[in-house]
């Protein structure tokens, strides 16, 4: 009897192990410092991003938010401090989506997506994975064409497919929608949110658009004078309704703080 009971209970017991762990990587920054030619950009920045969180980083231009992202993605080396991306991960497991699409014009759209696989490009299923990634951004039918024939928004979608094809645990986004027109931008935000919800990677989005930050992120950080000045959790249910009062209030709060900085420390001193 007891044995029977045990065997019927066993599947339930196993069920909790069957749910896969979050594929995202946690990011921890300790005392991060970086300066360029005497100008200090980051002065001892501290940050912990739990696995799978979507973080937006806002700030005035030149505040160091892009530098922060480039350090996390391994594009620059910090002068001091530590960057930890989970236990078994270095910066090569992170993927970056740049402000420009940065597609190779001499490779077909599909081959550009394959570039995102890095060293796994030679594995037999590489092509199939690239086709899947391209389909996920709705451009499967353009696989054999040259990037030059695509519009700006389509190029950025190819860049997103390229960033995601290797199933990264951390995606660093450096104002990837900054150069797009308003409508394309909204579409891309929706696409970004969808793939993030499906794949659950950790996302760090640098943007100067506060409304984009509050619409997409779980948490908005404001970088000011090389440190974190504001850390706001956005606890609104998804998908978020554009133009809702809650979003507007959060946006106003962050904008107010940003403008306050301007009054206090002007960028130009005459």
């Amino acid at each position, binding site marked *: 009897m007891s044995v029977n009971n045990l065997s019927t209970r066993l599947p339930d017991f196993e069920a909790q192990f069957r749910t896969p762990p979050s594929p995202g990587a946690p990011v921890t920054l300790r005392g991060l410092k970086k300066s360029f030619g005497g100008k200090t950009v980051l002065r001892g920045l501290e940050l912990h991003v739990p696995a799978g969180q979507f973080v937006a980083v806002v700030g005035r231009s030149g505040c160091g938010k892009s530098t922060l992202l480039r350090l996390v993605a391994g594009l620059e080396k910090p002068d001091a401090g530590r960057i930890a991306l989970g236990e078994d991960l270095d910066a090569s497991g992170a*993927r970056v989506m740049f402000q420009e699409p940065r597609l*190779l014009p*001499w490779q077909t759209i599909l081959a550009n997506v394959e570039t995102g696989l*890095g060293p796994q490009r030679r594995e037999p299923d590489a092509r199939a994975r690239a086709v899947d990634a391209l389909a996920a951004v709705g451009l499967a039918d353009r696989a054999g064409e*040259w990037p030059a024939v695509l519009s700006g928004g389509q190029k950025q979608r190819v860049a997103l497919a390229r960033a995601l094809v290797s199933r990264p645990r951390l995606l660093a986004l450096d104002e990837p929608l900054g150069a797009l027109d308003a409508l394309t931008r909204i579409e891309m935000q929706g696409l970004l949110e969808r793939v993030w919800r499906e794949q659950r990677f950790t996302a760090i989005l640098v943007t100067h658009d506060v409304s984009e930050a509050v619409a997409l992120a779980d948490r908005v950080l404001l970088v000011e004078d090389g440190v974190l000045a504001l850390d706001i959790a956005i606890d609104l249910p998804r998908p978020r309704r554009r133009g809702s009062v809650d979003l507007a209030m959060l946006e106003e709060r962050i904008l107010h703080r940003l403008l306050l900085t301007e009054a206090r420390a002007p960028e130009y001193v005459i």
Partner: protein
Amino acid sequence: MTQVLSQVLETPTAAQRFSLRRLAAAGGEGATAWLLPLLLLGLWQAASATGFLSTNAMPSPWQVLEAGWRLTLSGDLPRNIGVSFLRAFAGLVIGGGIGFALGLANGLSSLSHRLTDSSLQMVRNVPHLSLIPLVIVWFGIDESAKLFLVALGVFFPIYLNTMHGVKTVDPQLVEMARSYGASRREIFWRVILPGALPSIFVGLRYALGIMWLTLIVAETIAAQSGLGYMAMQGREFLELDVVVLAILIYALLGKLADLFTLALERRFLKWHTAFAVAK
């Protein structure tokens, strides 16, 4: 002659534009490109036939054609074209190969650039045809003299344009490839070389022009065979039809060289909007 050469060297964009326009014409209706040459030929024949052009000063197209036929039958023309072509090609491969290799090295490595570039730029400013007297002393009127001059002539356009192409590859693409885990070898083959290719082809186009120019001059002054030698022989025996024939063949060979680079560009730059063949 050196004046012409320096003019050719100093106007890179003009030649680029020229090639694009030619490409557009060839892509649309290939026949239109031949209208003007044919018209000129007709006018020339008419001027000779009416006696407006004295055949003592300028043979008629028909006489030139006859000379061509005569020399083809005797085997002189094919032999001389063959000899000239081999010289030109060998010089291009040697000089262009060295220029390409050094251009890559100096574009990729700042150490190599510091070591060699300023010396090469110094040599570049010496008109290579001014070396002819020296080359005759060194090599006599042997094959090696012609090879040396052609190789020297084609070296610089290929060297400069290869280096320029490598140096101006978009650093953002290189950064992207590196951050996406590409090895140095992959970055070279997938990013730097394809990115430098348009510029390398501009260099090749120049090199082909300089190649013929150098060869003809060298053959005119110091040779026992080849097209330049054939033209010189024509002058000495007052066979103006042979001289004009040689000149027309230069024009055709130049056109062939141009078609050759065009085919290469179409093959390797089909991603480039400027070279995309209209569907």
